[in-house]
């Protein structure tokens, strides 16, 4: 795993997403499960139960893919990163809605954008022969 950029990124990002998702529930402990208003995680990141669930699911997918192998990690990295950027772009045209997930100058938007670019970048650009190798 140590020599595979895709497996490293999938495992590290997956672990962080799962950790942040679990930590988020501690912050939003008094909030209803499907409520969409929450608190601040580490005093910076706005979280609510729906975000926590989304982070847990994405984190689990990344973690599992990171443990499975290069091809799985590469596919999940590119899919998660690409889907996030695509959702962000669609959100530009749905201004005023919660789908607009990239256009705020906040710490969590910055980190979401950076992590989406890393995931898409490593999924597309690293280990380009992985799919051929496992075929």
């Amino acid at each position, binding site marked *: 795993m140590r020599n595979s950029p895709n497996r490293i990124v999938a495992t590290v990002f997956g672990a962080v997403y799962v950790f942040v998702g679990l930590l988020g529930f501690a912050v939003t402990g008094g909030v209803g499960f499907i409520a969409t208003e929450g608190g601040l995680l580490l005093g910076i990141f706005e979280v609510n139960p729906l975000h926590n669930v989304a982070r847990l699911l994405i984190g689990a997918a990344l973690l599992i893919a990171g443990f499975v192998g290069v091809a799985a990690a590469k596919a999940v990295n590119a899919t998660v990163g690409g889907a996030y950027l695509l959702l962000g772009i669609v959100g*530009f045209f749905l201004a005023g809605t919660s789908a607009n997930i990239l*256009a705020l100058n906040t710490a969590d938007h910055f980190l979401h954008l950076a992590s989406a670019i890393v995931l898409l*970048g490593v999924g*597309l650009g690293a280990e380009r022969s992985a799919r051929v190798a496992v075929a």
Partner: protein
Amino acid sequence: MTALATMARTWPMLAAFGAGLVLLALAAGAGGPAGGVLAGVGIAALAWGVLSLHLGRPIAPGATLAVGVALLVGAAALVGSGFAGTAGVPAGPLLAASVFAAVVAAQAAAVVRRRSRAGTPSEPKGEPDGAGRAAIDGRLSLAGLVAGALLVAALATPALAATEAGRLAVPHGDHSGWGSSSTTGPAHHH
């Protein structure tokens, strides 16, 4: 290839992602012919970034250089003439998109120049001379990718926030669920 060159190899592709995102956010707020042009160039930038990353080399460097320079000149003309404000295109995000475009154009220019001088394939031969070298290159590339993503996000995030889409964005804690709307339609057009 030097360590810095290895780390920065993907930065033009990541800059293309930044340019595409900012241009599409500008397009969402501008509407009309200006919005159409911005959206077209933004989609082209994203597609260029995806394909170049996938292939491991900048595609169509000549055309990329031409479009990059045209975008820089066009942005300067829009801001200088004051037409940017009339068309609903804020100058700050346009400047940020121009910075991203300049990075892409600079790499395209370097590739074109190298081709014309040597008459050889533009992609430098970075063949590893062993498994150890390949592993080092892989780690350097990954570190460069993370650093590049942070740089792109550092410039793109405030630029996106300064667009019409950013002005109408809803903070996470305030919204009422995915897909919910506090307004009834897309960004209003100027």
